[in-house]
């Protein structure tokens, strides 16, 4: 008994040093030398300023000024956000409203699921709301668009709340709007879409997706930020 206690006490300290300090430090050291870009979050700088991480989604929306001259907020304290029509939009994020009261979409310091069940009226309302918002934004530029043609990724909230990708079908629809707003030929936009579409892992694992931040940055470069 006493022997076990002594061995346990020493053992837990020694193994903590081995598994909890040495192992992560060695992995960090090698990662920082061999893959510094990835290890530090694939940061993207524009003009010397940090504008995001390549693999973390962000909300391409603007916050208008309210009546009191400050940025407008909703009744529950979250920001009022309006999609910026010159940008491709990421998926609905459960870190923002209406999923999280007072929340900000694509909050990468407080990720969360929507946790909405398959048979909940709250789920139906959230999806219906997303479909309506999507149609309102895209229909003026894509008159043939109906609710039945909205891709699931545009109407369902992502898991991480910071999904960097949208589906190819979703990008194809949004391309109409972005091309019109930016006065670009559709073919130029579609070329960029396919340029920033990644395939499946080793040919079969997962789904193709379009990296929205990279695509929007490329568009800004083409039109000089307008």
């Amino acid at each position, binding site marked *: 008994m006493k022997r*076990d206690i*002594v*061995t*346990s006490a*020493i*053992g*837990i300290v020694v*193994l903590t040093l*081995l*598994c909890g*300090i040495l*192992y992560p430090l060695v*992995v*960090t050291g090698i*990662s*920082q030398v061999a*893959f510094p870009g*990835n290890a530090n*979050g*694939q940061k993207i700088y524009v003009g010397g300023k940090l*504008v995001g*991480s390549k693999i*973390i989604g962000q*909300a*391409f*929306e603007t916050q208008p000024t309210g009546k009191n001259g400050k940025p407008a907020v909703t009744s529950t304290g979250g920001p009022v956000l309006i999609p*910026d029509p010159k*940008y491709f939009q990421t998926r609905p994020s459960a870190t923002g409203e209406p999923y999280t009261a007072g929340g*900000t979409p694509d*909050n990468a*310091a*407080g*990720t*969360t*699921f929507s*946790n*909405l*069940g*398959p*048979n*909940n*009226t709250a*789920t139906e309302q959230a999806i219906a709301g997303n*479909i309506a918002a999507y149609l309102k934004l895209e229909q003026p530029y894509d008159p043939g668009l109906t*609710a039945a043609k*909205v891709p*699931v*990724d545009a109407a*369902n909230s*992502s*898991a991480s709340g*910071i*999904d960097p990708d*949208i*589906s190819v079908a979703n990008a194809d629809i949004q391309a109409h709007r972005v091309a019109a707003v930016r006065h670009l030929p559709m073919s130029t936009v579609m070329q960029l879409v396919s340029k920033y579409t*990644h395939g499946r*892992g080793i040919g079969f694992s*997962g*789904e193709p*997706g379009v990296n929205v931040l990279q695509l929007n940055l490329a568009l800004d470069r083409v039109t000089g930020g307008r």
Partner: protein
Amino acid sequence: MTFLGWLTIFGFALILTALAMPLGRYMAAVYTGERTFLDPLFRTPERLLYKVMRVDPDRRQDWKGYAKSLIIFSLAGWLLLYFILRTQTLWDWTGLNPQHFHSGTWNVTFNTASSFMTNTNWQYYSGETTMSYFSQMAGLTVQNFLSAGVGIAVAVALIRGIIGRSGREIGNFWQDLVRTVLWVLTPIAFVVALVLVFQGSIQSFSHYLSVNTLTHLPQQIAMGPVASQEAIKELGTNGGRFFNTNSAHPFENPSGFTNLVEMLTVLIIPAALVFMYGRMAGNRRQGYAIYSTMMIMFLGAAIVAYVAEAHGSPAQHAAGLHTQVIAGSSGGNLEGKEQRFGIAGSALFDVVTTVTSCGAVNSAIESFTGIGGAVPFANLSASEVIFGGVGTGLYSILLYVLLAVFIGGLMVGRTPEYLGKKIEAREVKLIALGLLITPLTALFCTSLATASKAGRASISSAAAGSPQGFSETFYAYLSQANNNGSAFAGYTGYIQPNPGNLGAHGITFADILGGFDMMFARYAPILFALAVAGALAGKRVSPAGLGTMRTDNPTFVVLLIGVIVLVGALTFFPALLLGPIVQGLTTHLY
């Protein structure tokens, strides 16, 4: 459903088998003391560890001595982890608390320490808003290694009992633990961690990034030493997330490829242990029989989950969303799923982590369809024997094997024997207790939590008063009892108004009940498994005769599946009806 979706599932099964067979051979060498190619690297550290820890590796232990060492060591781990989390601010001098998070509250820390010690990794807290990098590394990562090591040690001890030819000894706990950590867990975790960083995971001690987005909104991005913890979290079937959204977070699981790597990492050791068992038992067909049993049930679960999720949910259809596959879109129930994983990659990941005791998620299980969500329920109801946790899976299914031998023996009217050893009254009693304690604990806690006001306080507001609320509660205690740790994440035991623990408080009822749920359902079965090992170790081996029931042929596989399904169904069916099945059968919205 798509061809590539099916390929994901069946291709995964093939790759897994191809990787697990050589690892099983290697692990058999590790635990029987044969030479391995890593000996030159680890012999010296091993001797050093024994010396520092004052262990005599040549001293064999009987099952009681083995159990005593195991329990005391686990307790020491619990105390250290509780101490580290409760004194989080004390470690600020390391520079590994860049966000200056406060220390955890007593009740949530009680739950967390119990959770990581038992390989459950149930988490009432959210990583990026409560845990310093120091706590994640020195506290949580360590238990990811050690709880996995303890599980494997028990499995090895039970195997020694089953195949033992003389005496009462079943090995030396310290030796099994140290060899598991050095020869098995560290090298694989190390390689996987580097692969993950290579593919886009982060590994950094930087403070959180402050971003000014393209539309000039502020965005803060949580950072941390993620890859090193992610690797052992999957490998040790722990599943404890670094970030709140677990393996859905792009830093934890950046691509379809890493999703595949992580799924393989979860199942590789549980699968390899089965092949190792066949080798150690001197009859590889015994291993193949168990492997087939597990694989058949695994594929069945994956197929059901994929079909259900590809079909979509009633809420989607009611909102007018079309869920069939179209060009450029996966279709299906993408609520709470990531675009890069799609339906098949999410459904398979879910099955992989709920058949094992991993419990990591790359999608929100709570948002799965009724039937898709019933699959993890069913996996947990089978008591984690479809591959199961590292070690726990093998020792649990071996108990089922012994039970199946006993039932088979009754049916044909012969004395039940397994590998030449008679299964008698004492063993059958121990096996029955060992197998029934986990379900009983889960059901007891669920009924307590459903029936009391303090328990219902944890149910999420959207699910209150509906079958979803019952599903949440039931899943919480079922998952904790099976040391899985995945969640219908609306169920909460921690109220946190702001990031950083300050002003936050735990829900004592859920925290404490869950903590005891995990500890009791982990250590009671371990004690029974070790007792069975001790009882079998001393038995004489009688030669197999014409009348001996074979345990390495398809008939036995069918019998074994039957026993597992029967025990699980009889125990859990009434409760399952009230939650997920009701939701799966209706298109009614609540």
